[in-house]
Structures are given as structure tokens and as C-alpha cells.
């Protein structure tokens, strides 16, 4: 068991969750960036202990290579995560321009309804 890796994953996960629970959109964005890192590390941990093994390039004499599948999965996940984060960045940009706030708490403040609703 790789305690340090497990703790790292938990640490990142916990920190990311704490950040996404904040009011500030920028912190939330950072939270999601960390969250995707944490999940990737979780998958990586499933490839087993790397100690004494080599990278998964075959055909080279030497130590046994590590399990390549989690690495491939993570690569996919990293790229997907990048796409999603990029979308989120632009969504926040748009939200800021439309609603003039960078705080989720203010954005969803019940007192801040549509202008027409106040009239009605």
C-alpha cells in the first residue's frame, strides 16, 4: 500500500472540494483544476507500486515495465479535463460579463432576480 499516494489523493480531493464549495468563482475554478488532478492520481495509483519498475516502453531490456493502462486512461482524462476546464474558464468569463459578479453567492442571491420580476 502506498500510503503517501493515498494521502496525497485525499489531500488534493479534500482541498479541491473545499475550494469548489467557496463563493468565489475563481476559487471554484481552482478547485475543479485540482479535482481533476486528484482523480487522475487516483487512477494512477491503481497501476501498482512503481518502485523498481521501468516506464512502459517495451523492447528495452531492463526492469519490468509498469502497468500502462492507467496511464493511457489518465492521458485521456487529462485531455478531457483540459477541454472541460477551458470551457469552464470561458463560461466564467461570460458569466462575469453578463452578471457583473465573480461570486456565486452574489450571482445566486435570491434578492437579485431578473429586473422584470421585480416589477411584476
Amino acid at each position: 500500500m502506498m500510503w503517501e499516494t493515498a494521502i496525497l489523493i485525499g489531500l488534493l480531493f479534500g482541498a479541491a472540494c473545499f475550494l469548489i464549495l467557496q463563493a468565489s468563482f475563481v476559487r471554484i475554478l481552482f478547485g475543479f483544476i485540482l479535482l481533476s488532478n486528484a482523480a487522475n492520481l487516483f487512477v494512477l495509483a491503481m497501476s501498482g507500486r512503481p518502485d523498481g519498475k521501468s516506464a512502459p516502453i517495451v523492447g528495452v531490456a531492463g526492469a519490468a515495465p509498469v502497468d500502462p493502462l492507467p496511464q493511457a486512461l489518465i492521458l485521456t482524462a487529462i485531455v478531457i479535463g483540459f477541454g472541460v476546464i477551458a470551457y469552464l474558464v470561458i463560461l466564467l468569463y461570460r458569466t462575469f460579463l453578463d452578471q457583473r459578479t465573480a461570486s456565486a453567492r452574489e450571482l445566486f442571491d435570491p434578492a437579485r432576480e431578473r429586473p422584470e420580476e421585480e416589477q411584476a
Partner: protein
Amino acid sequence: MNPATLMILPVALPLVTAVVALMGRRPAAWRRWFTGGSALLQVVVAFALASTAWHGGPQVLAIGGWAAPYGIVLVGDLLAGIMLVLGAVTALASLLYGFAELPVGDEHPLRLPLVQFLVTGINLAFCTADLFNLFVAFEVMLISSYALLTLEADDWDIKQAFPYMALNLVGSTLFLVAAGLAYGLFGSLNFAAIAERSTALAGTPQLTVLALLLFTVFGMKAGLFPLFYWLPNSYPILPSPVAALYAGMLTKVGVYVLLRIFGQVLPPDLPLIHTLMMWLAAATMIFGVLGAVSRNFIRGILSFHILSQIGYMVLAIGLFTPYAIAAAIFYIIHHIIVKSTLFMVGGVVVVLNRSDDLTKTGRLWAVAPVLGVVFLLQALSLAGVPPLSGFWGKYMIVVEGLRQREWVLVGCALLAGVLTMFSMLKIWNGPFWHPEAAGGVHLADARWKPMTAVAGGMTLLSLGIGFGAEFFLRVAHEAARQVLDRGAYVTLLLGGGN
């Protein structure tokens, strides 16, 4: 070409269509013909696959020729076939409805490509037999759904995109963790391999941990209480053709995956999960319908109803007998058609009354009786009035619930039926029966006729499901049998010797 090779078409066709439509850049008539033709072809292909699975049993396509459990395989069993047919039909209908709603010149240039990307993700989720590939399929589906959600949003609608995205991002992350966990525990991501290897783990807590995690993830996609929060406020901001597709398909993908994972992939003896499913389903039913009751505009009411109806399907899955699974499948068949039609009707109401606020709409029963009939039939079907399609699924759930002596759950299901009726009456007494419409009735806006025609076509389909329930029930029973036959599934994918 052998049928298994065709299995790629439900995924490849929309993908190619999307890319070609994207390269076409601007909306144009040819793009509509092309996409519509492709959607029609997808319907044909889906029917062909479903019929192959119905007559010849499940089909397997090993992508790239790499057989399970190492490569990604697509499995076309009857359940997948049914879902593909439903998806293709709903997509075609919403496409045609969209064509009727907007002239080419006003169309958003990205809408058609994104819808096709969304269909790609949905279809892949139905076919795939690999956990990580399912994750990727979900991502394709979700990112397209974010994109479509915000595509035509205005400055206030955009608010709703963030919660939708945030919750689904959390769900995706948990899914990735679950996929990793599954790889750790089973050393494979293939459904059949997991099915085979998890049998040895049956009853161990680590298996239940994985099952709970997967349940959370798919429960969120399906829209179970209390994970459904992303849905009811975000769907109303969608344009009605897209909303019809979302309402029909997106949550049902979650239900489908719950069915697939807990019916076929994981061992059946997970009593904790089944109990959890049933009670959360009951809560979903009641809270969903109460949410609908509390809303005062059609899209809001209908959005909450999606959730409430999800409760029925998940309740059926939780009851977990072949009969109940068949009920769930039948319910899905019914629900997808009915729900998307109702959203379409909502769109027509908006076109006619210039609003779908119940206090501002009216007079439609007098001037547009066809629309009224369409709504009435589908609303009553949703509420479970016999002999419309919604009744049979509810009936089967009640039968199974009573057989298992789940009195409270059956009571909840029946109560939710009454409340559904109530909220549908709320809509009926607004746009249809109310004598005044604040925004007037814009019958001159000719778009409502073709839009109603599409909704009417869907209604005919739904009537067919209701009156021809025998056929659909047989299909559902066979699909349920195929799903629950884990041994055959493992043999099919991994071969007998493995």
C-alpha cells in the same frame, strides 16, 4: 456487411454528420437536409440493430478487432437496441421540430453539429461494454449538453449553466474515481470481465463501496433525489427543440446505465443498493412532483416531472425481478416519447401565446384543438390514465410492488400519480381552458402548425405504445431477460473458456 460491423453506425453516423455540418459552417438548407437525412438513416440503423438483437440475440463489435476484455467492445443487445431506436426517433423528431420552429436564416450555426455530438455520446453510452469508454461517452454527452445549454442563452439564463456544469463535473470526477477503483478491484474495465470477476467478490464490502460510488454517479445522471438539483432550473433555459431531446434522453441515459450496471455487470445480490434505490426513487417521485406543483410555467413543471417519472423507473429497477426490470424498460420506452412530446407542446404554447407562464396563457383549446388533444393525451399518459402508454408501466410497478409487499412504496407511486394529474390539470386549466391570454393568441404565426404536426406524430407513436402494449411488453421482457442473463453475457464477450 455483417450486423456486428453495423454496430458502429449509431456512433459513427452522428459523429460524421456533426463534423460535416461543422465544416459546413453556416446554416443552410443543404445542412438541414443532410442532418435530417442522417437522422432518418440513424432511425433505420437503430431499428435494424434492435431487430437483429430481437431475432438473433445480442451482437458484439470489437473495435479495432481487439476482443474483450482488452479492447473496447460494443454490445448491441435488445435493451441497447431499444434505447438506440428511442434516441434516434427522439432526435429525428426534435430535429424536425427545430426546423419547423426556426427558419434557416435564424438558426444558430452550431446547434446542429452540437446536437449530433450529443447524440453520438448518448448512443455510445447505450452500446459500450467498457466502463472507461462509458466515462468517455458521458463526457462527450455532457460537454455537448453544456455547450447546447449555453449556446443560445441570454444574459440571465447563463446563470443556470454554472450549477448544471458544477454538479456534473463533480459527477464526472466521481465516475473517473469509480472507474479507477473498478480497475483496481477487477483488473479490467470490460463489463463482462467485471461481471465475471465480481462474482467472486459478491458480498464483500469493497464491492459495495464501488457499487455505492457508481450508484451516486449514475443516480446523479439519472436525476435521483437528492442528486437531481442540476436539472430543474437548467432545462427551462433550453430552446424547445433541444429541451425535447434533453428531456427525452439525457436522464434516461442515467437510468439505462443503472439498469445495465446493477442488472448485468455487478452481481445481483446487492440488497443495500436495491433498498437505497427504491427509497430514493420514492423520494424522487414525491419531491419531483411537488416541485412540479410548485412551478407556475410549463417548462418548469415539465422539468420537475422528468425527475418524478425517473422515480418510477428506478423504483422498478430497485424491485429487481425480471418482471420489474421489464416494467422499467417499458416505462423508459413510454416516458421518452411522452416527455419529449410534452416539451414540444410547451414550445408550441410559447409560439402561440408568446409565453408559457400559466397566468398569461389561455384560449388554446378553443382555437387549436389539435394541440390540446396532443397535450391531453400525453399528459394523461404521463399521469398514468389507461389505456395510454403510461398506465402499463405504472401498473406493472404497482403489481410488483404489491407482490413484494412494499406498501409504502406503492402508496408513494399512486400518490405521485394523483399529484401528476394535478399538475397536468394545472397546465390544462392555464393555456388550454383559460378564457383570456395576456399575450394574445398568435395564430397567424404559421410555425405552430408544423410544430404541432411533429408533436402529433410523436403522440401517435405513444398511442401505438399504449394500445399495442402487448408487443412492447414482449420486447421489454426479452430485453430484461437478456440483461439479467449474466452468464450468457460473459460467454458472449469473453468466450466460454475464459
